[in-house]
């Protein structure tokens, strides 16, 4: 029993964090809102850091790492509100391709391209109403019923769906669902793959949401230390302090569930659903509270477009409802807790529920 990251994991996360904090500035995010939005140079830098290749298995030319290796990086991506489609691709789509690659040549090929930094993949989970970043993807992983289709993006018609968050470039795709070449998993394998993808998506988004929450708290603390009213910084007011303290408490107690869930999806993905739902719910709450309190602490400034805070807040509002909204994940926990066979209590902290309860996710 050891609930710490390895030195390698920590070093990697720290160095990526340093990179992100240096490169991913609000100015650069705002610049990416023009046009179709990708910051090509930034993407190239992320490729050079090897991030898209991290979860590609070694036999497909990647680094063969797992979700736990990536989770702190996802958190840092949230902290800087990275707009590039790194995280969904690297930690949700890539493991899904890897899961299907044994039985599907196209999946194996796309993995090679990802590892080489030559392709980007967007993923359209049935629970999400749109596909993020489909416009700059080379490949789309799409659901037709429970089947998984791998579609070249130029074979799909993409309908733009504007989000409250200008960094989120959403599309609904239309494609020829009958073309046999697209089909990389049938109903049964597809159901399992979408279910696993959902758990990864929930955990990953939880990490992003936690990072977003921490980013908003950090900005608000700085602002409250600088802004003066009545002859002293507004952050000296106990009400302002307690707004921030409440955010810190919620974030702190989302953190361990996220790491535990990342461990679960990496080590025992078929039994990860309860941990994943817990992580997503806790992080979603922390992010919503942080957005609300951060805006409040910023006052009128927090309600403006020119203040950078809304870059984070809008992302939080959007992500909190993707990859299963609060109701979806609550219902999973609720149904599980109601079962007489469910064991909770002190000695069950690290038990993983049996996989049959996964049905509801597909």
């Amino acid at each position, binding site marked *: 029993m050891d609930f710490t990251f390895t030195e390698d994991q920590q070093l990697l996360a720290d160095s990526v964090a340093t990179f992100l904090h240096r490169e991913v500035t609000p100015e650069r995010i705002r610049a990416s809102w023009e046009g179709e939005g990708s910051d090509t140079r930034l993407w190239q830098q992320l490729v050079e850091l090897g991030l898209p290749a991290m979860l590609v298995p070694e036999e497909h030319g990647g680094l063969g790492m797992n979700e736990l290796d990536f989770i702190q990086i996802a958190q840092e991506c949230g902290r800087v509100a990275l707009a590039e489609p790194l995280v969904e691709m690297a930690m949700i789509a890539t493991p899904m391709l890897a899961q299907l690659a044994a039985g599907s040549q196209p999946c194996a090929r796309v993995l090679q391209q990802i590892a080489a930094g030559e392709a980007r993949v967007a993923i359209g989970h049935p*629970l*999400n*109403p*749109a596909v993020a970043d489909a416009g700059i993807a080379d490949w789309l992983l799409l659901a037709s019923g429970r089947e998984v289709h791998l579609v070249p993006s130029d074979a799909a018609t993409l*309908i*733009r*769906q*504007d*989000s*409250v*968050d200008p960094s*989120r470039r*959403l599309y*609904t795709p239309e494609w020829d669902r009958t073309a046999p070449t697209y089909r990389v998993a049938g109903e049964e394998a597809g159901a399992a793959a979408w279910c696993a993808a959902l758990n990864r998506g929930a955990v990953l988004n939880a990490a992003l949401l936690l990072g977003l929450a921490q980013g908003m708290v950090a900005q608000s603390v700085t602002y409250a230390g600088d802004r*003066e*009213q*009545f002859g002293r910084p*507004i952050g000296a*007011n106990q*009400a*302002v302090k307690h707004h921030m303290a409440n955010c810190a408490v919620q974030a702190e107690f989302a953190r361990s569930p996220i790491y535990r869930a990342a461990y679960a999806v990496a080590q025992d993905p078929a039994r990860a659903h309860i941990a994943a739902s817990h992580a997503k719910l806790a992080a979603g709450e922390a992010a*919503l509270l942080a957005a*609300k309190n951060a*805006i*409040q602490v910023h*006052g*009128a400034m*927090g*309600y*403006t*477009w*020119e203040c950078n805070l*809304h870059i984070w807040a*809008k992302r939080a*509002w*959007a992500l909190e*409802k*993707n990859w299963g*909204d*609060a*109701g*979806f994940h*609550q*219902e999973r926990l*609720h149904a599980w807790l109601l079962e007489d066979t469910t064991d909770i209590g002190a000695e069950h902290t690290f038990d993983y529920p049996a996989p049959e309860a996964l049905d509801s996710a597909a």
Partner: protein
Amino acid sequence: MDLNYTPEQNALREEVRQWLADKVPAQPLQSFDTKEGFEQHRQWEKTLAEGNWGMVTWPVEYGGRGCDLIQWLIFEEEYYRAGAPLRVNQNGIFLLGPTLMEYGTAQQKERFINAMASGEEMWAQGWSEPGAGSDMAAIRSTAIREGEEYVINGQKIWSTRAVFADWVFCIFRTDPASSRHQGLSFIFVPLDAPGVTVRPIAQLDGLPGFAEIFFDDVRVPVANRLGEENQGWRIAMSTAGFERGLMLRSPARFQQTAKRLVELYRQHRDEVLDLSVADAVVKAYMGAQAYALSTYQTASKLMKGGKIGAEASLNKVFWSELDQQMHETALSILGARAELLPHAPAAGAVGNWLDGFLFAQSGPIYAGTNEIQRNIIAERLLGMPR
């Protein structure tokens, strides 16, 4: 206590309802934070004024109907029930108008009130400055008297409607040696005066709902001052006072939001898994209803000569947090579609809940942050130490 409407009150309701049924535009107007939408809303104000429905509590001589507060509440109920446009003119008719009637000279009333009521001249509000937000008495912009003119220098911020409005009413420091609440005067400035620069500030939705206003040796006649020189604070406080605060947020608005929320819930009930939604919907109804009842009680008390002061802070905290809660609940019901802008093809019938949610974020901030309001409640209503 008699919680039945009189026949006269019912007749008023019927009259308003009929008139609105005839006149309310079939298509929703564009946002008044756009140039085009602003003009549409200005036109609507003109229509209201022509029907003498612009400001029913104003005296008949100013185009009002001399309505009492209960009649005003009935008007508001029908107004929101009809889905009539938001009041682009609210700075003028709710805030400045009554103040002008109380403190203005005959000439000022003649010059400004009718043009304001008809929507011909639209007003922005200029209280805050970059260093004077919650701490409003920290105002530094000056209006220095030179003969029959004031020469104005400085800067205002968070000035609502200033991007498209014609005039702004401000408080400036007319006594440069003064500090805090002393030495301030209440002055009108035309926004097209030489030396005035308006910099739009976009809000969360990207539209310029407010602005920064820069004053660089702007000259206005002394006749543009409302009330006595150096008495501006007292006048501004009466402008910000209870009765108008009440009018800025009539309960009807929140009752209609609660109604739409209940309808949304009924419609989506079978898909909603969120375990907190049912409770939140019940609380939304209760909150809106309580706010309406409380307002009726306050109105009844005021009509019997009662006074009201710091209690307004209870209202501010309550409605602003109720509004947030209702919109959060609506987004929970909508789930993942909640992030889509209404024009997105996949948005379906998400309606304007997202816009309302964004706007609701400003509620606990403007007109005195809820932290300041809670201080007021504790110190002035409960008597806790400062």
